[in-house]
């Protein structure tokens, strides 16, 4: 009964919502609130990536590309077009989704390694473009982002983004939980097990994959916009190849096919460097090492492995 409840996506959404609400009552320091906000922001991208990889079974090494497009849209919208930052965020998410829709059709005909490399190439092209268009984006030094927050409600800049990122996270989890328990979500899961069998059962395979791809791109852009607005500054390094690898690691370490796993994976990778400050030089080496060890020892990821243990010991 308990284990069954833990696997219900709505229960995990509620649990995450409770954590978001309760955390500011427990921790007071700005540093910890900031870390929590980063966890929420990365959870949003990883949720989308998990929908694509864990449910639809398609690998992407290019989501840092969508992430950085969202981030630069809130930087460029106000400075180039004089748009309001909130409108820029909405516009960035919409444009990134449209881009994902256009490139998704040809890309998603590929599978496995080919899809991974094609998405990697896409992400790298976005990165090269943003790094080289110095007049528009400030090049490798990055650019300032016009401040936007909820100070009208009496919240500080940090607390506004804590609540916004937490709110977006809970909202995304709610939408994905709904999606996954709908026929469209069951179609996605069928795809993960066998594309051929899903096709034979009358599922429009190409359409289902494209839907997952566009939703994941939209969530990546939303998270990127959140990060840029929180930091007030954005550089292309926020969306390099290593970032795509990091996002993939979060999804896989937390556990593919588990919404709460995405949050756990994001929390693990955001908080890990805080415990490794003494080994700062070895940060990437440790990241790579953990990635290998977790993949070899716990190929299912943290949350599904814990679930399996609990299923054995709990009623």
């Amino acid at each position: 009964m308990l284990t069954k409840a833990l696997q219900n996506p709505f229960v995990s959404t509620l649990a995450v919502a409770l954590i978001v609400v309760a955390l500011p009552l427990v921790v007071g320091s700005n540093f910890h609130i900031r870390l929590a906000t980063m966890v929420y922001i990365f959870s949003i991208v990883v949720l989308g990536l998990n929908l694509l990889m864990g449910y639809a079974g398609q690998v992407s090494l290019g989501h840092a590309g969508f992430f950085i497009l969202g981030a630069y849209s809130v930087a460029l919208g106000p400075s180039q077009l004089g748009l309001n930052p909130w409108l820029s965020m909405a516009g960035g998410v919409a444009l990134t989704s449209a881009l994902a829709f256009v490139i998704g059709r040809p890309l998603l005909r590929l599978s496995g390694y080919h899809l991974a490399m094609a998405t990697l190439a896409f992400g790298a092209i976005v990165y090269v473009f943003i790094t080289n268009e110095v007049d528009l984006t400030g090049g490798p030094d990055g650019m300032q982002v016009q401040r936007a927050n909820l100070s009208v409600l009496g919240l500080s800049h940090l607390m506004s983004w804590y609540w916004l990122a937490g709110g977006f996270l809970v909202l995304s989890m709610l939408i994905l939980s709904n999606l996954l328990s709908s026929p469209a979500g069951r179609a996605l899961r069928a795809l993960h097990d066998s594309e051929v069998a899903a096709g034979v059962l009358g599922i429009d395979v190409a359409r289902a994959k494209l839907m997952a791809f566009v939703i994941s791109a939209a969530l990546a852009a939303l998270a990127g916009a959140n990060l840029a607005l929180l930091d007030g500054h954005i550089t292309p390094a926020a969306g390099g190849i290593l970032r795509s690898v990091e996002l993939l690691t979060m999804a896989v370490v937390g556990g593919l096919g588990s919404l709460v796993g995405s949050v756990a994976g994001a929390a693990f990778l955001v908080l890990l460097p805080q415990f490794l400050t003494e080994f700062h030089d070895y940060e990437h080496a440790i990241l790579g090492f953990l990635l290998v060890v977790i993949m070899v020892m716990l190929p299912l990821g943290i949350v599904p492995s814990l679930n399996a243990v609990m299923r054995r010991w709990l009623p």
Partner: protein
Amino acid sequence: MTTFFQLVVSGITVGSIYALVAIGFTLVYRASGIFNFAQGEYVMLGGMITGILMTTCGVGFVPASLVAILVTVAIGAISYLLAIRPARSAAQVHLLIITIGISVLLRGLTSALLGKDFVRIPTFVSPETFNIGGVVIQSQALLVIAGAMAMASLLWLFLTRSFVGKGITAVSANLMAAKLVGINPAAIVALCFGISACIGAVGGLVATPITMTSYDAGTMLAIKGFSAAMLGGISSAAGPLVGGLLIGLFEAFGAGYVSSTYKDAFALLILLGVLAFRPQGLFGNRSTQRV
């Protein structure tokens, strides 16, 4: 016209390195079905270890390069036996992530132990240049091209003429049948990882006098080597070599005639184009999937 031939020369020089990465990729892929994302790191390690040994430890070129090749080969074979083989029955995605993890680990260790600065190897052939009708060719560039061709031919001879090489071909062709005639696939695949690391390290140490190297050079090399393998066709013998040279030429012409800041984007665009329109590559056979 001089510019054109100058670009051809530089294109073939970098293309030779991409070809070596592509050859290493296809060797491992055909024997094990594993896509080794760490292939570019071998090139980086070959250059970095040789360079650091020569510049900061004052070791001569020959011992330094031998140490670099041996260390890289050991890393290649050990990473397969310790990290990849235990997970061999896992899904493709997991194996890909493991090799990405190895690549990040090697990068991280290199930056922590050998530093983040660019490393150069002093040119080890006379620094003279040839001038043929206005086209300038460095002798080191000729060495890179000759080295790549030599490695490719040696590998081909090894695969087709030697007993062990035929074992590799057997494992690539049919794993079950190879096991039945008494071939140990673990040893063969570990050997392939070792050979591909050796090919990469040699590429790194002949190219570094021209291109320099740093701890983060491997990822782009892996992507370009993969683009080369896909362009040539992963199932053909000459595919990776021709693919590498073509990617090098595209890149040189793109940088020379279109835009030098977008140099890295050309290989990526070719990769996307090939994957979208001709996933079997120029020389590959169209494969059909059994259901």
